[in-house]
């Protein structure tokens, strides 16, 4: 597994076309049969392309990902008493060619590929744990592992040092059905006659089997096993989602089908037309016309009916992004500035781009995909989505406005207001850069943690009064371009701080600098 890129909110950064299918918290990783102490508790995201483990304690350093295309086989082991449910994944060794994200050579985190940046002691520890040790209770000689395979007693501290160096390095091939250790030359299990799992061509010699027995990190050419241990349940749901994702093979279709679609519809004819015209302005114009027509078709069929739009949401979002990108390019805006002046069209382009960006959230968090961590995940997504908007609005936004904007972006999977508020209440616990604040009047507001400091707000009010004279809430709302309710709250905040005082006249409440009791 290789390290993954995380967004600021500690969710994995998704490729275009990639979607989160299922999320489960409190999951630990095992390499082979051994518990991976570095990846013992975290949140696992199943996307259409990958499985991403985000560590709870140190998300930035310890998070790893695994492409689904590498999964050869997956098995679900249901839990029993104190054993939690596990999903084991048999991985192919080499990353398939053509994928953007290269993989480490091995399924385990301590493998050679990803081990370069890791502290040395981790590796030495793992090699020590792979050495054989003798159980103090039953004298069984174990190879690695934290527990005696015979009696289940945990391995005592320093057992490796005391144990005799009897390396059980006999070449064996474990039967996947009955777990009998067969000789490597066997094709079928001696015990149950089932097919033995065949190693790849690179590792057909007895040496590689030996290597795997010694520790997974040495199994260079051979596939390895990674287990996910679901300590908070949810294994079966995750498993079925995983099967579906693997079956869907979303990665086969290429990273961005949406972008390719509108162009490719007409690309054949267009190229033919271009060849016929022989280049020049007319070709560009006709190409533009063709792509416009293709877009038109997409839009028309998309809006034909809501179900169709649901099905085509991907295309539409892709299209929106595409147009936004085009508008962003200065050359494009110059080309478009035919009738209107350049600045005018640039301004309009900006507004249009904003609408387009507002339109799409690629893979909205839902109760189905996130389950028990729904509110946490929602909070992270909210933060991703709203952070920019809140910053643009001067650091605070009424919760209702944020809710409307967010739900519009979610298109077909709106969230309930109660869920929205609950998610917002998790901002502090998740150390996200937004805050939910309730003013004494009951007004709920989303604030940027950095700029929502009370002293900053009162300082702003002070400076406005200093330059514009006494203010009403209306005046402040006009100056700050914020909702009236929020302007009122800000003035009250400044009043509570003793910076301003009010004058209740017939024409309303007006706020003055506090000359009565200068602060």
């Amino acid at each position, binding site marked *: 597994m290789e390290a993954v890129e995380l967004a600021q909110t500690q969710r994995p950064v998704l490729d275009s076309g990639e979607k989160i299918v299922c999320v489960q918290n409190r999951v630990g990783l095992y390499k082979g049969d051994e518990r991976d102490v570095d990846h013992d508790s975290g949140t696992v995201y199943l996307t259409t392309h990958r499985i991403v483990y985000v560590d709870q304690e140190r998300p930035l350093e310890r998070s790893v990902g695994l492409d689904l295309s590498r999964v050869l086989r997956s098995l679900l082991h249901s839990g029993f008493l104190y054993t939690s449910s596990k999903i084991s994944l048999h991985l192919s060794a080499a990353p398939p060619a053509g994928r953007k994200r290269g993989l480490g050579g091995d399924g385990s985190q301590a493998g050679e590929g990803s081990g370069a940046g890791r502290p040395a002691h981790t590796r030495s520890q793992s090699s020590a744990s792979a050495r054989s040790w003798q159980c103090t209770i039953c004298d069984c000689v174990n190879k690695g592992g934290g527990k005696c395979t015979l009696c289940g007693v945990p391995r005592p501290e320093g057992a490796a040092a005391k144990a005799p160096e009897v390396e059980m390095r006999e070449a064996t091939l474990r039967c996947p059905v009955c777990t009998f250790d067969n000789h490597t030359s066997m094709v079928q299990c001696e015990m149950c006659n089932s097919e033995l799992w065949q190693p790849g061509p690179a590792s057909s010699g007895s040496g590689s089997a030996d290597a795997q027995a010694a520790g997974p990190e040495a199994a260079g050419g051979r596939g390895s096993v990674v287990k996910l241990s679901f300590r908070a349940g949810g294994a079966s749901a995750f498993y079925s989602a995983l099967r579906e994702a693997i079956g869907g093979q979303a990665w086969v279709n290429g990273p961005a089908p949406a972008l390719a679609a509108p162009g490719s519809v007409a690309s054949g004819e267009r190229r033919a037309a271009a060849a016929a015209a022989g280049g020049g302005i007319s070709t560009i114009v006709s190409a533009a016309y063709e792509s416009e027509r293709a877009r038109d078709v997409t839009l028309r069929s998309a809006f034909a009916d809501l179900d169709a739009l649901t099905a085509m949401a991907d295309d539409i979002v892709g299209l929106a992004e595409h147009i936004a990108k085009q508008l962003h390019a200065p050359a494009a805006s110059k080309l478009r500035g035919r009738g209107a002046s350049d600045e005018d069209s640039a301004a309009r382009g900006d507004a249009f781009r904003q609408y387009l960006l507002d339109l799409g959230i690629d893979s909205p968090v839902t109760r189905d995909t996130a389950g028990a961590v729904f509110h946490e995940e929602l909070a992270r997504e909210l933060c991703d989505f709203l952070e920019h908007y809140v910053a643009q609005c001067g650091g605070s936004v009424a919760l209702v406005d944020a809710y409307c904007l967010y739900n519009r972006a979610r298109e077909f999977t709106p969230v309930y207001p109660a869920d929205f508020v609950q998610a917002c209440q998790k901002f502090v616990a998740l150390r996200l850069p937004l805050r939910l604040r309730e003013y004494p009047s009951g007004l709920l507001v989303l604030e940027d943690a950095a700029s929502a400091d009370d002293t900053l707000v009162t300082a702003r009010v002070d400076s406005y009064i200093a330059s514009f004279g006494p203010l009403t809430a209306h005046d402040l709302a006009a100056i700050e371009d914020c909702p009236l309710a929020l302007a009122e709250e800000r003035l009250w905040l400044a*009043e*509570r701080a*003793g910076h301003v*005082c*009010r*004058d*209740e*006249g017939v024409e309303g409440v*007006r706020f*003055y600098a*506090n*000359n*009565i*009791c200068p602060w």
Partner: protein
Amino acid sequence: MTSPGSATPFQFPEIYSFPPFFTRQPNESTWREQRRQWCELILAYYRHYRLYSISLTEPAREPPFANRQVSRVLPADALREVVDELVKQGNAVWTGAKNTKDACLVLWRKPDVWASMIHQWASERGLLSTVLTVFELTSGDDTVGQEFHDLDAATMRRALDVLQSQGKAQLFAGSSDEDLGVKLFA
């Protein structure tokens, strides 16, 4: 010393023309300061014009409770709170019907100060152990130029009550307040 009915106009403080001064401030610390400034203003104004009573039965229209220049009036509720504060300081007492708080007597000089002033005057004039009427004290020719000349009857009565409680005076009830007699002792 200001003579009664002073011709010089009262110098209002700057805060008197600040509109929020006439709104009861919700911020507690601002209000405490505002109330203190109101108390100060009322006492200074009442002493300047030798006024004694505030009536809260109808909205105030006159200075110092209203300012025509900024067209602001201190609301009655806020004024009650201000007077409550004056009462707490000992500079006012509620008069009139019980628990209505619609009239008060402003004591811009405390009764014991008046009392010692009167006692001192009497001992200087050698009038101790002589029966005097209250009319003589407030309007008599002997007290012209004294600060308690023309003193409000109710305030005078409070000063004399103080003297009596100190054992320095004895009051003799007459047919009316004006006829009240008093005998001062050393």
